[in-house]
């Protein structure tokens, strides 16, 4: 009797196991997926050294240099005194923002250089930690300049903001400004309220162009973002590791 009944209508395929199959596949992909998180500290290496040519020697006043040395036992020597890792960031910030207050410390943030040297036997972990602290000091200063919290500053995505064509133009202006003689930059970023005195016509023109670019208030923030970078240029000088004295 049952057999006859079953023949009448085409049997529907039972789809309840479909979910199980799909789950199985899903779990397989979940397990095999490695969401590659490429996070880290970005740096740009100095340009290539020509053959037989030594690195360009730039004379920097000693007081504008903050020296950090790390020996093979991962001990810090900061400004010729033994230093602690957790005091490093504060020390750098104080040094960079000295602005001539302490005659033994830096003249202004644009001049300040952080010099960093390790031993060949220093642990990479320590090396990166110090680099992180240096970067942290600069990022904190920039975040303060923008009056925003540090983590928000770190999250701000320069590249994404730059997909905007107007901002791309801004970025070009910024890049150009970076090529400018120091006098122009200084004028634009430090004392742009004063009259430009003793500048060439070319410089004055550039300043005008840059000011016009600034005038459109729409992208004020990103401009300020770049200003923060100009105000506190990350000047890290990394020496080739050799033997550091204990």
């Amino acid at each position, binding site marked *: 009797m049952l057999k006859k009944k079953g023949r009448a209508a085409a049997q529907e395929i039972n789809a309840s196991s479909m979910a199980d199959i799909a789950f199985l596949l*899903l779990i397989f992909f979940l397990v095999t997926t490695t969401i590659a998180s490429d996070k*880290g500290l*970005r740096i740009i290496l100095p340009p290539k050294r020509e053959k037989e040519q030594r690195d360009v020697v730039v004379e920097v006043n000693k007081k504008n240099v903050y020296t950090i040395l790390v020996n093979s036992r991962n001990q810090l020597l900061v400004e010729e005194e033994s230093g602690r890792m957790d005091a490093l960031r504060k020390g750098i910030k104080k040094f960079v923002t000295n602005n001539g207050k302490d005659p033994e410390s830096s003249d202004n943030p644009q001049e300040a250089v952080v010099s960093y040297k390790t031993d060949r036997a220093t642990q*990479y972990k320590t090396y990166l930690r110090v680099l*992180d602290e240096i970067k942290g000091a600069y990022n904190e200063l920039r975040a303060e300049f923008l009056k925003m919290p540090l983590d928000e500053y770190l999250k701000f995505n320069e*590249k994404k903001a730059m997909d905007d064509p107007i901002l791309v133009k801004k970025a070009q202006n910024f890049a150009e400004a970076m090529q400018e003689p120091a006098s122009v930059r200084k004028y634009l970023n430090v004392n742009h309220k004063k009259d430009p005195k003793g500048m060439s016509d070319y410089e004055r023109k550039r300043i005008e162009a840059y000011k016009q670019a600034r005038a459109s208030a729409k992208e004020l923030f990103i401009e300020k973002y770049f200003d923060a970078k100009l105000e506190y240029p990350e000047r890290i000088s990394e020496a080739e590791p050799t033997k550091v004295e204990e």
Partner: protein
Amino acid sequence: MGGFGKKSKPLPAISTASLPDIVFMLLFFFMVTTVLRETNIMVEQSFPSASQLQKLEEKSLTTYIFIGPPTKKLMAKFGKEPKIQVDDVFIESKDIPKFVVQERVKLGEGKKDGLIVSLKMHRDIKVGVVTDVKLKLRESEARNILYAARGGQ
């Protein structure tokens, strides 16, 4: 006893008919986002921690160099000293310029200057090794580099 004991109508069973659809959607998402790893990492990976992390957006421009002690399996063969791995082979630091040229060719004419080198290095290696690699990268004009690190202290 009032409405208390009254049996309300049995709730209709929740239809699970859309479950496969949902699961398939998830499945497709993972299938699309999965990038099956091309290289077999032959060195131990344990990144140092850092707080000022930057994300690497330009995946297609990135090339990887792994440095660390060989994995347990390979330790017998290659020893404990940190090794430099690119693609699927161990190389010496002097071979890095050649590797960079290869990677540039892969990127093609338009993009080759945008090359970013991500250095995935074990936290316990010595700076000496890192420096050798950096000097070679500098020599081959691959100056945009990233020290891979993880968040949190």
